[in-house]
């Protein structure tokens, strides 16, 4: 818990500022509305946490969310009956993309920044190739229910958060963090290093599925629904104090980072700094938050593990 305190403090301050600027925020409807709007980013941040704590990146989640929504609209095409089979297909699709990212990164030994950048291009190209450039078909009410009704959205968020926290406490989570810290030592302790890292990417893919369902449900089909989500997710995780390069950070802090980012956007909107300057403020806040985090850790520059030089005789 010690590591999550700083980000929780920042989040509390921002929420208080919002409450002052907009008293409606204190009523359950107001606060739950905020939580619902933040839900997709929080879930994506949780998925991204697993990838980052294992020392990798996943740039493909944004495109995957767009693919999920566009594919759903095309296949459901308005008929309610198709909702559940398509939802199942979306889950399988998300897991397969995660699996592909994982395999390329671990077996082909391609740095994950490049592997997932490649996947991002492939996904965004493929989906529009298939739909002829524009989203077609329509989402059914049954599908959109999850994203539109606050109750469902908050419930899905709560369940996901619970699952994710349990995962990090379980053997998988601990061995994943250890792998992110020192892959060689983990391997020699019997950790199935590749399997664990692939699973992290699959979880990131799964988080994109859930986020896609929520975003698609909330706003309907659109071609840019996933744009920029990958950078926001990475920013949120880093705001939560998780160190890029792996081996350190808690998933609760990562999710709190996402809430903080969303609170920041809401605050800026309320104070009317929306439009262009919102980006500037976002840029300053990100650097300040991470800089504050880094100052406290004197060993911010982890010495690269000297694996090779010491491969003994």
């Amino acid at each position, binding site marked *: 818990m010690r590591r999550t305190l700083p980000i929780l403090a920042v989040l509390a301050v921002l929420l208080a500022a919002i409450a002052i600027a907009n008293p409606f925020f204190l009523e359950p409807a107001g606060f739950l509305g905020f939580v619902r709007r933040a839900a997709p980013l929080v879930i994506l941040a949780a998925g991204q946490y697993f990838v980052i704590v294992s020392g990798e*990146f996943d*740039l493909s989640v944004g495109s995957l969310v767009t693919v999920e929504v566009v594919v759903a609209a095309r296949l459901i095409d308005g008929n309610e009956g198709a909702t559940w089979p398509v939802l199942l297909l979306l889950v399988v699709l998300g897991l397969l993309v995660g699996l592909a990212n994982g395999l*390329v990164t671990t077996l*082909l*030994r*391609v*740095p994950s*920044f*490049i*592997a997932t*950048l*490649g*996947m*991002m*291009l*492939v996904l*965004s*190209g*493929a989906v*529009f*190739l298939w739909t002829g*450039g524009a989203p077609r078909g329509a989402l059914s009410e049954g599908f959109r229910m999850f994203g539109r009704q606050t109750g469902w959205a908050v419930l899905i968020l709560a369940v996901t958060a619970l699952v994710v926290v349990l995962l990090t406490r379980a053997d998988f989570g601990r061995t994943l963090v250890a792998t992110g810290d020192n892959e060689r030592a983990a391997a020699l302790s019997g950790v199935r290093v590749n399997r664990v890292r692939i699973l992290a990417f699959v979880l990131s893919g799964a988080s994109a599925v859930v986020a896609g369902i929520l975003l698609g449900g909330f706003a309907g089909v659109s071609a840019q629904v996933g744009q920029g989500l990958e*950078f926001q997710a*990475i*920013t949120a995780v*880093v705001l939560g104090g998780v*160190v*890029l*390069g792996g081996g350190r950070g808690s998933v609760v802090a990562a999710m709190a980072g996402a809430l903080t980012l969303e609170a920041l956007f809401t605050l800026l909107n309320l104070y009317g700094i929306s*439009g*262009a*300057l*919102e*980006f*500037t*403020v*976002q*840029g*300053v806040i*990100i*650097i300040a938050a*991470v*800089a504050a985090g*880094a*100052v406290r850790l004197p060993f*911010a*520059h982890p*010495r*690269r593990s000297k694996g*090779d030089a010491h*491969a003994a*005789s």
Partner: protein
Amino acid sequence: MTPDALPARRSRRFAAVAGPTRVVFLALAGVILIGWALVAADGGQFLTLENVVGVQQRSAALGIVAVGQTLAILAGSLDLSVAYLISLTSLVAAETMAGQDSGIVAAIAAVAGVSVLVGLVNGLVITKLRVHAFIATLGVGLIIKGIVDHLYDGPAGRVPETFQHLGYDRIGPVPVSALLWAAVALTAWFLLSRTRYGYRVYAVGGDVEVARLSGVRTDRVVIVTHVLCSLCAGIAGLLLAARLGAGAPTVGTDGGYDLESIAAVVLGGTALAGGRGGVAGTVGGVLLLAVLDSVFNQLEVNSFFKDVVRGVVIVVAVAVYARRTGLLRGRRA
């Protein structure tokens, strides 16, 4: 008694750096051949003068940015603010020139100033505030984006004809912009292979602790590298202003120069972790992407299919390097 390695008089001199660079230029030749065959089959000619010039002109801006990005990545860092900086410098250039030839020198100075400033900020945030390069440069990029979108809501300023020559003139088959790119690439190659600064970039990229203990002022190397990287982005901004005739707030992001330049650098065999690779490979990577674009244009291939192919090419190329360096490392005593 024989120590472990065979006492060959001079153990074989493995041109490790040349390895990946050779691969990218082989791939480039392959793509040109395939492209030529496909276009010929489709009834067009591939190697026409317009095409060759088109490829060079289209890849000049990305090439210059990629050279700067190569320096950053070699030093173990990276720069996500280049795209936004290009938009900013194109606007600064066009506004300072305001259509007057007299404004050109002032514009170049202004662009240099802005670029150095942004490079300094990137470098200082990374070294003094100890912020990871990904977040530092992403943050600075967003700051620039906010300022640009706030001040400008469309193309602005005007570039006088004399300066537009930079974007259009040709000397035989070689456009001036390609010469500019070549000059920037050569300078960077010279810096890396002949000057102490260059050696220190490889040292800091290879292992920052080792460099520090050997007396290298690692922070200063990173800061200088980021200034040079931003300068390259500034030059690209000037070039694009010359081609467009004006500055545009979205020219950098439209071209996707941040992720595209990183892809080109890695395509060229430079290790994303730093310490290995070079400018030559990056030039190959940029040309490979440009030729791909040209072939797709010739065949009027749908731009979404192009994204798919480009994504696959990048991943496959890096997988090939990973296997090659993996073999090298595995074979030691």
